[in-house]
């Protein structure tokens, strides 16, 4: 599996996918504290005539914790869209462009090819939210003063990362079903936002991957059922999606002209 992993690492780096994802998350991590500390008071002072920016800052009473939670909220709305469209071709492009034909004939197995994608992009997608959250923590700490330790941040970033793994497995499954990258990205968004919306409406978030986001935002590391249930559910969904992906791949016909 070493060559498959190296191949995916090269793809992540040379296609610019890793850079796009890292830069996007980092952008929000740096932007949120500035927005809340500088831009928001300026906008409000413009609307509430007579009040100074410092006065408005005092009124909004923003803290580092508020800033981090704001970032986590933003990044999982816009970040989900960025992830979906940056990685929508993970499996769909391989099928559509027939790039898997030669590896298959050379004896490469689906399990290893898909496994390498999950591993490389999974590690990347766990690391990026953690790093971005650490950056946001540091920068918001400098602007608002440090309020919490690093451990809750690592905990929150890890939970976000696990949620992103769920997105990754969705992208791979929709990719092999639809075989077109952009529709696979759209369907992943529909799946992720659909689950989020319905589970919020029915108050069953802890039974869905969205429960991880709720737990992440608490920034309180503790092993409770409200943490273990969404982790177990997400893991089960990821396993199910991977099995579905592999089973679909085994039944596909390859190198067939598009019209057929």
């Amino acid at each position: 599996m070493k060559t498959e992993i190296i191949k995916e690492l090269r793809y992540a780096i040379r296609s610019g996918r890793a850079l796009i994802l890292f830069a996007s998350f980092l952008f929000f991590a740096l932007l949120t504290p500035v927005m809340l500390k500088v831009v928001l008071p300026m906008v409000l002072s413009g609307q509430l005539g007579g009040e100074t920016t410092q006065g408005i800052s005092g009124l909004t009473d923003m803290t580092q914790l508020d800033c981090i939670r704001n970032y986590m909220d933003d990044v999982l709305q816009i970040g989900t869209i960025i992830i979906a469209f940056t990685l929508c071709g993970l499996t769909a492009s391989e099928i559509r462009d027939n790039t898997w034909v030669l590896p298959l004939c050379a004896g490469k197995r689906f399990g290893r090819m898909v496994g390498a994608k999950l591993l490389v992009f999974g590690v990347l997608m766990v690391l990026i939210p953690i790093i971005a959250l650490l950056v946001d923590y540091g920068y918001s700490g400098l602007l608002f003063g440090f309020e919490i330790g690093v451990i809750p941040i690592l905990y929150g970033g890890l939970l976000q990362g696990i949620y992103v793994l769920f997105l990754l497995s969705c992208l791979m499954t929709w990719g092999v079903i639809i075989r077109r990258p952009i529709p696979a990205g759209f369907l992943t968004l529909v799946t992720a936002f659909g689950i989020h919306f319905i589970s919020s409406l029915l108050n069953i978030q802890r039974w869905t991957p969205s429960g991880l986001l709720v737990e992440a935002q608490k920034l309180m590391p503790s092993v409770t059922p409200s943490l273990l249930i969404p982790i177990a559910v997400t893991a089960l969904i990821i396993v199910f999606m991977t099995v579905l992906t592999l089973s679909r791949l085994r039944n596909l016909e390859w190198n067939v002209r598009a019209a057929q």
Partner: protein
Amino acid sequence: MITVKGLQKKFKNFYALKNVDMHVKKGEIYGFIGPNGSGKTSTMNILAGLSRPAQGECTVNGLDVTKLTHPGDLKIGYLPEDPKFYPWMTAHETLDYLSGGRNTGHTGEILRWTGLLDARNRRVGGFSRGMKQRLGIGAALIRNPELLILDEPSSALDPEGRSEVLRLIKDLKGMGKTILFSTHILDDVERICDTVGMIDAGQMLFEKPLAQLQKENTQPIFDITPVHPVESSILDALEQLTGLVSLAKSGKSFTIKVADNGVSVSVMRFLADSGILIESFSLRKARLEDLFLQGVNTK
């Protein structure tokens, strides 16, 4: 190496393959010819384990393709019509990836043999069509297979690239490999093949050793170009001439196939008697192209 019997392939309501029989013997170069859309790629996809047949028996390398769970189990080399590589990988990385990093010596040997050694560290995205085709042949050889299935390996190449690919295929035969390759360039088949199989509209028209095919079709062919276009009534009368097998018109020229050289005297006499001035008159033997056109037209 390959035995195919009654092979059928269906796409929705369309039968791409209706009834294909094929036998490829060990150590030979088998030329699989047919017009575009005749079913060559569909057949080769099935033989490579990439596609499933609707019906029929198909044994490749001693394995029943219909019961195959993974194309890699066939242990053959396959080159698709348009081989797709990762453009961001170099030639060396591509072969290393396909080999699973197992045999770096063999990878270097393939790069040298395909003439890509100097370009080994260049990204495949910048390769010419010919270079990609040679890399594709190299990729097909990565597991050192005994059987190679090459789908139109020379079709989209310039004359130089074509000659290079044909040289590689000939070299492969010298190494003891069995090669099945499809093409619609009949000159390529005449240059390197031992056996020829022709398919049209999903059905095999014939399958014969090239030497036998050439022996069976030794009737002379006259390519005649008159100074002025010939009236159709004269051509109709010419067609009735004893010993004349067929007549095909192309512009003001016409091609006639006769039973033997002796008929040429009657042909020339007929043309002289009809007052037709001749610009050129050449005699040649039937070529694969004539058989191909005959096969396609008689269907």
